[in-house]
């Protein structure tokens, strides 16, 4: 299970680093319109109606990839945490393997051991 935790940490750190780098670059904040109630702001006097850049597809794609990685990473992390909690709940003297064997026999998915 430790194999999952280290890459998960790396992913989180990379995302945090990316988030920190962007605000440090000198940018002018504003916001691209998203929805119905964003009323378009126009300045007919300026060239290009005052819009210098669009919220481009390329940059947005970077965001999409980051979110996808974060989503899968979060799922993997959650799964790891749950499994770790489960192993702590299992009775230790018989061990995990024995607990699994007992369970699978109860489900009849494995044939019961014959009298060898």
């Amino acid at each position, binding site marked *: 299970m430790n194999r999952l935790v280290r890459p998960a940490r790396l992913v989180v750190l990379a995302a945090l680093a990316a988030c920190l780098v962007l605000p440090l670059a000198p940018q002018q904040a504003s916001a691209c319109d998203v929805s119905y109630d964003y009323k378009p702001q126009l300045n*007919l006097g300026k060239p290009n109606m005052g819009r210098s850049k669009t919220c481009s597809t390329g940059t947005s794609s970077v965001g999409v990839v980051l979110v996808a990685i974060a989503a899968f990473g979060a799922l993997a992390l959650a799964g790891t945490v749950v499994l770790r909690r489960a192993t702590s709940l299992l009775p230790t003297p018989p061990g995990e393997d024995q607990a699994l064997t007992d369970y699978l026999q109860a489900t009849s998915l494995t044939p019961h051991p014959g009298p060898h």
Partner: protein
Amino acid sequence: MERGTGPAIERQVRLVAVGAAVGLAALVAGLAINLSGANDPPAPKLPTFPQLPGKAPGQAPGPVPSVPQLPSNFPTDLPTDMPSNFPTGVPSMPNMPSMPSFPSVPGGAP
């Protein structure tokens, strides 16, 4: 359908009530902002026409302010009098804010 156990359901209903209060507050705030015009963009800065009484409308003497350039990739298959977001069932609104019809536009316009 089984009726749920008392305290657990009560707590959830109370949570929903809190959410409803937040929803109503958001609605009131949104309506206040919108209907008071706080969300309206400032009027497009148009070149000012000199006001000359006695002249017929549409005859601007003197130096004529140049028509601002609209970008060349103006999509030609969009209807010109439509608010930018409801493609379905849109009646004719007299003019889209971004393309006001000037009384006269010397110098040409796209």
